[in-house]
């Protein structure tokens, strides 16, 4: 029976979570002990089984269901929620205060409405004209003008007294808002006191380099030239190839590579996924092909696919190929898949007999990620040599539509 620490070492080795010293120790243990070998095999097999577990589908209306169950109110931060809770006495006093202020406002409004405005110098006629009828809203020059002594001499009983509520004195302008009263033209402030949250500062960036080509147009010279020109612009690219069935897409790519003498090493997870017909996304990496080689690969894929579609509509598998520059996300992905930065070219010189051998590697992307410690990936990494002249690094991702 192996000790716990040795079992841990084998487990770490199977998971690719080991230092170079631990790798040596684990490999030595595996060479010497049948029990360690058996445990390693079992752990790797369990890992593959876990990686290739089928993925249940969510109901098509799941997003809508969640959206409907979200509370109506947006989670806006309101300052009022930060105020401490008031006691019952405080609440009562507050309500009484509000009621009193409303009553006072109504009383003041009524007073202003029914009380005549007085001008300086205007004689008080209220005493003399108690019985005179009051007529509102008919402002006349006569009524507004100061009464002459002649007028005053006349008996006032027969003349109606006219009050003008609409006309204002010369010093008063109708558009000037009184202090404390919001102007109807000013923007309405939030009655709840919400402070608007400033939008994030947007940084203007130059549009990224991007070329999208339908794969089936690759039989035309124009499309091929466009692709070649795009690939010539840099020494590394990310290409997304969209297709209906990623497994069929990968199988076609493998077949085309075989025809052109390109060795494509498939990781064990990829092999398992293809065997079990589990659909996933695949990442192909190669830095040993030139832009012309890639153009010819795409041409073969496009022509075959077009023939299949022409023969029986719906049999075509590929959609667009999108060429982009490699970004930091790709670099991270490559490092997590291969355990090292593939874009850093090893300094090992290429042997003369190996010059004609061009290699690429296929790994599985999420949800079944390949392990950087898998036999196939390690073989690919061990065999890497410095790039042939004119070659470009391409991360090709086969994605489903």
């Amino acid at each position, binding site marked *: 029976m192996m000790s716990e620490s040795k079992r841990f070492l084998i*487990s770490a080795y199977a998971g690719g979570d080991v230092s170079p010293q631990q790798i040596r120790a684990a490999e030595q243990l595996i060479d010497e002990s049948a029990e360690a070998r058996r445990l390693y095999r*079992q752990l790797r097999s369990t890992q593959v*089984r876990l990686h290739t577990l089928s993925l*249940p589908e969510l109901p098509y209306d799941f*997003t809508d269901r969640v959206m409907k169950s979200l509370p109506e109110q*947006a*989670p*806006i931060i309101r300052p009022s929620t930060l105020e401490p809770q008031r006691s019952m006495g405080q609440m009562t006093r507050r309500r009484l205060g509000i009621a009193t202020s409303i009553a006072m406002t109504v009383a003041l409004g009524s007073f202003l409405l029914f009380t005549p405005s007085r001008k300086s110098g205007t004689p008080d006629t209220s005493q003399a004209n108690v019985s005179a009828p009051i007529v509102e809203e008919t402002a006349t020059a006569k009524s507004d003008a100061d009464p002459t002594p002649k007028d005053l001499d006349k008996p006032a009983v027969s003349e109606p007294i006219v009050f003008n509520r609409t006309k204002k004195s010369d010093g008063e302008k109708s558009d000037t808002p009184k202090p404390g009263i919001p102007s109807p033209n000013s923007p309405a402030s939030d009655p709840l006191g919400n402070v608007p*949250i400033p939008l994030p500062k947007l940084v203007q960036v130059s549009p990224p380099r991007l070329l999208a080509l339908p794969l089936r147009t690759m039989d035309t010279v124009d499309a091929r030239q466009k692709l070649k020109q795009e690939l010539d612009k840099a020494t590394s690219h990310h290409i997304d190839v969209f297709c209906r069935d990623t497994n069929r897409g990968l199988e076609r790519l493998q077949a085309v590579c075989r025809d052109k003498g390109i060795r494509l090493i498939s990781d064990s997870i990829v092999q398992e996924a293809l065997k079990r017909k589990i659909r996933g996304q695949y990442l192909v990496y190669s830095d040993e092909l030139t832009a012309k080689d890639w153009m010819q690969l795409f041409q073969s894929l496009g022509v075959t696919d077009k023939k299949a579609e022409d023969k029986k509509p719906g049999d075509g598998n590929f959609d667009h190929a999108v060429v982009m520059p490699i970004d930091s996300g790709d670099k991270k992905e490559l490092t997590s898949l291969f355990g090292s930065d593939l874009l850093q070219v090893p300094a090992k010189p290429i042997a003369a007999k190996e010059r004609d051998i061009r290699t690429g590697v296929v790994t599985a992307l999420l949800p079944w990620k390949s392990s950087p410690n898998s036999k196939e990936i390690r073989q690919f990494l061990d065999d890497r040599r410095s790039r042939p002249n004119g070659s470009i690094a391409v991360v090709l991702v086969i994605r489903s539509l």
Partner: protein
Amino acid sequence: MNRDDSQLVLLAIQGDRTAFGELIRRHQERLYHTVYRLLGHPDDAQDVVQDAFISAYQSLRHFKGDARFSTWLYRIAVNSAISKKRKRRIIVQADLPPHQRIVEPLDESFESQPGDALEREEDEEALQDALNQLTPEHRTVLVLKEIDGERYETIAEILKIPVGTVRSRLHRARLELNDLLIAKEARREQVESRSENRS
């Protein structure tokens, strides 16, 4: 226009529900797969994922942005799944007489095997069954690492435990799962040989 998660979170805080809808669409599948493997039941997993999104929406104001939104969301969902699993385990155990208070494997008699066509399905069932027998802590680490392919640092952030603890839990979980699968295989072989002897 493609916005990253933090921009969508900001818009959702300002009341843009469609921005939150986009966040749901982005993360629902992966979250569901993880929670499904933690719970082993599709309906329960859907409930937990739905509740996680609702909790996240209600607590967006508490999201400080010092972690990724997905990590924060995973933390909510995983904690909810673990507590749900614990509760369920307690209920199941309490309903059984004491001598049966362990999780029994499914019916493994040879006659109950439907044939080669469903071999893969059975294989998955056996694996899920073994996963269910692990402790929630071990199962969570194993699912996040081996099925989701998360990094140790991310798992540590989700579970709020040190990276060293993640490593040790993972190794224990791997070895435990391996032992469970071997034991299961041995039982299966026993049943098969018994059935051959009978016939």
